[in-house]
């Protein structure tokens, strides 16, 4: 073995990951006769030892609890949304249906679209214009604002900006002031619970399938039921989702 051959093995020798025993032995024999290659191997071993010392130092580093809570809330919201979203599979199967069933489905879709059009028209008429919102801003997740209460009447407890995930804060910091989000009211996810009695709440921005709108009684467009929609989920201190609103 010469030094060029040794150089190819040096890293694996240092890592003790050389599977070929014969090659390993030849490499080690070479270091006994070549002081420079011996130094090269020692240097690689020292570097790996230092790298592993850093890895050991970082071994206890984990994401903060707010990430755990946000992900758990997203999981629960998604599970709740998908549990009852049977609209899409039904339409997938519909290709095997007879023509009269297809006609019935088409008629049903027309009715849904009409209802949606009426709903959105009436919803838009209730949403104040941008100038009005400038006077009475919609409740958004900017630090310093309080989230709107789920029942639309009572104020929730004060929400400390530290409790908001960084992702949410960062996104809003780059939004231009003209980009105003349109939000629904908060829909409570647990019946009979008074959020005003809680010490602190978190609001977490998540993305859910469009079918999640149906969970709170909003109309779902079958054509966009699989597309993601933004939502703000209110979490209690225990990480459980208490309320949700949808964002457009």
């Amino acid at each position, binding site marked *: 073995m010469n030094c060029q051959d040794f150089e190819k093995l040096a890293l694996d020798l240092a890592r003790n990951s050389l599977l070929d025993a014969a090659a390993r032995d030849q490499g080690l024999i070479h270091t006994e006769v070549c002081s420079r290659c011996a130094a090269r191997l020692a240097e690689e071993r020292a570097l790996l030892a230092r790298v592993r010392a*850093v890895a050991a*130092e970082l071994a206890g580093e984990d*994401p903060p609890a707010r990430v755990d809570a946000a992900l758990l809330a997203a999981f629960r919201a998604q599970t709740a949304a*998908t549990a009852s979203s049977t609209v899409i599979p039904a339409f997938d199967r519909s290709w095997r249906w007879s023509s009269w069933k297809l006609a019935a489905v088409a008629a049903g879709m027309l009715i849904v679209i009409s209802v949606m059009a009426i709903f959105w028209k009436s919803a838009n008429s209730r949403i104040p214009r941008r100038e009005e919102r400038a006077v009475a801003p919609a409740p958004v997740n900017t630090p310093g604002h309080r989230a709107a209460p789920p029942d639309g009447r009572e104020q929730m407890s004060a929400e400390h900006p530290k409790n908001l995930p960084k992702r949410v804060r960062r996104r809003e910091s780059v939004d231009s002031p003209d980009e105003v989000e349109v939000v629904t009211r908060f829909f409570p996810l647990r019946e009979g619970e008074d959020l005003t009695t809680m010490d602190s709440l978190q609001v977490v921005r998540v993305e859910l399938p469009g079918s999640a709108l149906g969970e709170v009684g909003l109309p779902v467009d079958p054509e966009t039921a699989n597309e993601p929609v933004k939502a703000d989920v209110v979490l209690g201190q225990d990480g459980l989702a208490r309320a949700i609103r949808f964002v457009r």
Partner: protein
Amino acid sequence: MTKPMVPSDAELLRLMLAGDEQAFTALYRRHKGLVYRFALLMSGQASVAEEVTQEVFLALLRNGRRYDPERGSLKAYLCGAARNQVLLLTEKERPYVRLVEEADDGKAVPIAQLISGDDPLGDCARNEANRLVRQAVLALPARYREVIVLCDFQEMSYAEAALALDCPVGTVNSRLHRGHALLLKKLRAAVRLDSAAPDAQGMRCFA
């Protein structure tokens, strides 16, 4: 006496996608540290690591069915997703990394024999040395940094790293060699290793 069965990642993922919260929690606890530390070493910023961890697991919730256990481990799949997120987040705002740190009085911090096993300066110097290693890793180009983080810090096999990086095993091997050479060069420059230490890099012998 039989040991309690530990469910595999694939089994936990299947249960998670079926709506089992315990499976999600178990899977998250099993891998959150790996993803977070990978992102932390790649970016050098806790806020980025936090955001990457959140995005990777949200993506797993949304697109977990895309994972194919026959292609490789979930660990490698998650690291691949984390790598894409890190590159996305840090592409435009890569932090400026200083290699030679200065003390308050403006003098260079004397770190002797940084990469030798013998460390005469004790714990303080060791911590300082660890910090310099992290900075040197951060100063590497991303393609070398990622293989070093996966293979050396996370102790992944070349095959797993290749899956995470979506490249051939040979590419991982060659990048690791090149990455080590660059890392040693940066560390030497950072601590001005004394001339007594043999400079193996660039030297040849013909024994």
